[in-house]
């Protein structure tokens, strides 16, 4: 774990724009962030059927991680729970698996699915699933955590209200590092 993070940090420092390396290093960092989020977010007890039920991460849309996320989370556990990664190609697929939605704990919405973001959010609304995005305005529009690039650094925004609505408890320590983003008015959301 330490070695991985060290690697991430080392690779994250240089130019993030360079296509190959910067992309991979960006997602390596993002993968670490996802792991950290899992650590600092508390799900309702009923979410997991069993104590050792895995934390399921669903990646919606185009998967930029490649195998990075799998590598990073390999063997990792949070509170005794391993990780399980699922990949969904599009929102409609999300809709299909709505029955399984309750089993998802984290939903990573790729920038490719931004046009259908509202729909996606609507789908998971009321279900304790942590939504993580990587598109500007994601948190404002109902997403819970949005990863952004700032001065070649990965930062994140948090929509506390959305998390509360989903009955998720985000640690104050996480909030202290995040940029808190208020919920945009409903009409605005509709307009999008």
């Amino acid at each position, binding site marked *: 774990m330490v070695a991985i993070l060290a690697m991430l940090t080392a690779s994250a420092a240089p130019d993030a724009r360079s296509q190959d390396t910067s992309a991979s290093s960006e997602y390596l*960092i993002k993968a670490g962030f996802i792991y950290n989020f899992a650590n600092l977010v508390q799900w309702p007890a009923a979410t997991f059927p069993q104590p050792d039920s895995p934390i399921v991460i669903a990646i919606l849309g185009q998967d930029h991680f490649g195998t990075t996320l799998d590598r990073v989370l390999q063997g990792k556990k949070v509170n005794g729970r391993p990780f399980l990664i699922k990949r969904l190609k599009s929102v409609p697929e999300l809709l299909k698996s709505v029955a399984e939605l309750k089993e998802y704990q984290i939903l990573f919405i790729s920038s490719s699915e931004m046009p259908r973001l509202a729909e996606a959010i609507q789908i998971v609304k009321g279900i304790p699933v942590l939504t993580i995005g990587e598109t500007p305005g994601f948190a404002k529009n109902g997403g819970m955590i949005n990863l952004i690039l700032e001065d070649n650094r990965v930062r994140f925004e948090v929509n506390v209200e959305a998390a509360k609505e989903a009955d998720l408890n985000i640690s104050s320590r996480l909030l202290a590092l995040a940029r808190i983003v208020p919920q945009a008015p409903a009409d605005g959301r509709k307009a999008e």
Partner: protein
Amino acid sequence: MNLLNLSIKRKLILMTMLTSSIALLLSWASFLIYDLISFRSLLTQDLSTQAEIIGYNSAAAMAFRDQTAATATLSALTAKGDIVGAVLYGPNGKMFAHYFRGEETLPELQPTCSQKKSYRFQGQYLEVCHDVTLNGDRVGTLFLMSDMRQWSMRAQRYAKICFVFALMSAFLAFLVSSKLQKLISGPIMHLEDTMKMVSANKNYEVRAVKSYSDEIGSLMDGFNAMLSDIQQRDTALRGANEELQTRTQELEEEITQRRQAQEELLKAKHVAEEASRAKSTFLANMSHELRTPLNAIIGYSEMLEEEARGSENSGNIQDLQKIQAAGKHLLSLINDVLDLSKIEAGKMTLHLETFDVTGMIEEIVATLQPAVEKNRNTLHVRLADQVGMMRADITKVRQILFNLLSNACKFTDHGSISVDVDRRLEDGRDWIRFEVVDTGIGIGAKQKENLFKEFAQADTSISRKYGGTGLGLAISYRFVQLMKGRIAVQSEPGQGATFRVDLPAQVRIETPDSAPAEGTSEVPSPAGAVKTDRDTILVIDDDAAVRDLMSRFLTKLDFNVFAAGSGEEGLRLARQVHPGIITLDVVMPDRDGWSVLNQLKAEPELSEIPVIMVTIVDNQGLGLELGASHYLVKPVDRERLAALVEKHRNMHSSAPQTVRIPVSMSPDGKHVGPIGAEIVRRR
């Protein structure tokens, strides 16, 4: 050393203060050490907690690699003044975020945290290392460093408080111990004062006042008891001293009295001795003065008797004999008194000479014949063969025997008297014994006691009946003693008496100048040296009666007599006639006999003439010393004088005789006739 010499008071204060200070310091020290240690562990704990909190707070930031957030978290430590610095290291050990108080930098802190969670003290700093974890995952390490400012401040504050409290407690201890030490030092100092008072004033009536019944109290009791003991002894001693002084004074007074008494006694003794000497001198002088007229009385009565025998006037003879007898008796009395006074004055001296005892006895017997015949007694003389010669004062020996024999004659009537002379050895010494035995009236036991004492005749009636002074035996006794002899008597009343005299055959004078004064220092005169007439005699005497009597007597002996009335005349005549013999008196006006004798011996022509001293002065020693041939004391024993002059004439009979004058005239012109009578001198 100086501390040990401090006074008890100071010592007590010092002890109390030291003890209390040590106790106080120990308790303080233990408290402080405990407090500081616990405070330090508290600080450590505190720092650890701080590290935990900061670690927790920065864990997310570390996890999300948010350097700004981590730095912000660390800057919260500004509120903690004692934290010097804080560093967050990433999991790879690289510094991720840091905080330093003020401008401080801690280069030496870099490689510190080796253990996961630990703290350590580095110098005055406390360092804590703490792993930062997020849900069990280590995301980094936190390093905190504190300068323990609180602890050192606390320690400083404690030191100040301690110092102030130590001062205050020392002061209080001083106050309290100053008060309390009096309990112990007070009585001791009082005791000391009392002791000083006693030793300074020698006043043993002082007593120490006991304050408490502790050890010092009993010490005081002992001291007081000792004092009263000493006081008693002192009083006793003083009493004894006073008594001693009184006694000493008494003794001194007694000694003074005795000394005075002694002085008085000495004075009295001197006075008595003086008186005695005066008496003796007076007696001696008187005796001389009495003898001079007696010379004339006896001499002339003898002469008259002789003349009367020649004529037909024989009726006067008996009267003249009575005068003679009375004169002789008086003379013997005077002689006795003179002898005794001489003895008492200590002037009696011995003149030793060697003589034939037999001759002396025969001489005495011949002299005594009339006395023996008077009471019709018979006298027997028994002489041992070996008696021979003896050396003694012949006149005194003669007088002793004469006294004893005349006494025997006096107290014996129709009896027998015997004289036994014997020579014997006794105690290794040569003795001559004279024993006079009579068959007379004898002596009673009571009379025997006083027999040899002066003026103690057996009975006053005896004096009347038999005559005599009673001095004879006393004088004999003294003479015997003088010659270191013995005299003893054996007698019963009516049984006669035996007197025994033992004399040393060689009498010695026990005086330093025991120059042997030979009685007859015969000076052999070389015949023919000077032409002298052996039959010529020169009589030198200032007394005309003596000159007359001597001239008559010597003329009868066929001598040619010249007489001189003074020393000068005598010398002139001697040079003129060169006499064969000179008789010389001592006491003469102008020039005395000693001077004349000296002159005679000084002139060569006269020095050979034998000089016979005929004088009242009894100083035989001086006379013989000056060169006199013989020494006769007046009144002159005619027989001795005759014997002496005859001896000198015979000695020179071979010498040519120049002049022989049968009768000569005395200087005063009187005819000097032959003297028939003889003067008997008892000594």
